């Protein structure tokens, strides 16, 4: 799933080489920390969070209801 998330992010940002996704556990829940170039942060989140929500929806459909969180962190 991490590699798919990376694939999607690299496809939509201006600086694919700066995309880093870290997978970690927080209180027993899966968390994906997303780091992108500061120029791309807005693009990844989208208007009203529409893009990041879309990514979450798409990934959810592939993980059979396992919960996870996406976090966009500033580099």
């Amino acid at each position, binding site marked *: 799933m991490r590699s798919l998330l990376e694939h999607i992010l690299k496809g939509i940002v201006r600086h694919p080489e700066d995309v880093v996704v870290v997978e970690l556990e927080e209180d027993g829940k899966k968390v994906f920390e997303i780091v992108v170039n500061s120029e791309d942060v807005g693009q990844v989140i989208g208007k009203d969070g529409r893009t990041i929500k879309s990514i979450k929806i*798409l990934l959810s459909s592939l993980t059979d209801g396992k919960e996870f969180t996406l976090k966009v962190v500033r580099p």
Partner: protein
Amino acid sequence: MKTVITSGKTVEEAVQKVVNEYSLLDDEYEIDVVEKGSKGFLGMFSKMAEVKVIFKKKYFERKLSKFLEVILEKTGGVDLISIDSDGKTYFVTLGGTGVGKLIGKHGKTLGALQHISSIFLNRLSDVKLNVVIDAGNYRERRKKQLEIIAKDAIRQVLRSKRKVTLDPMFPFERRIVHEIVKKYKRVASYSVGVEPYRRVVIEYVPGKTRKGVKR
């Protein structure tokens, strides 16, 4: 689409630079020579060649299908059936036994995939392109369903002369309903609420003819 202007010692060199950078295939671009360039005389008066490389829609279709294929690989049971384009709109058709999962509740997942694909394609293009993704004829079926819902509601409004509020719908679905309502006399529609719970309201307007509201 996309146009890249570049220069080099020769026309070939300039073109090759762009072809390599974007890994263009032979049939995916056209060349417009702006300046042929010349070696000059004894290295003097030499001119650089300048070319315009115009990306054809085949390039965008290939890139989009590659992008989607990696995603679909993980979905399982979904195949990319076709990618076509008409002007600035790219139509993607998906099929297979796994489409149900990919469509999601009320087409939510399909909408998400479409949104992401649209950003992806526009990242490659200079002008705004649209992407429409359909899976297992979902959009077509949904449109017919919306027509039935809208017509039922209109009938109810005309009979009761009261307004009817429909269930929450996506923007493009509400648009379809508004378009249908417009075709009828004595009814008008508008939307209320905040996304994602925005709903269409159809109301009775006694003096409305097809051309506009007369009160």
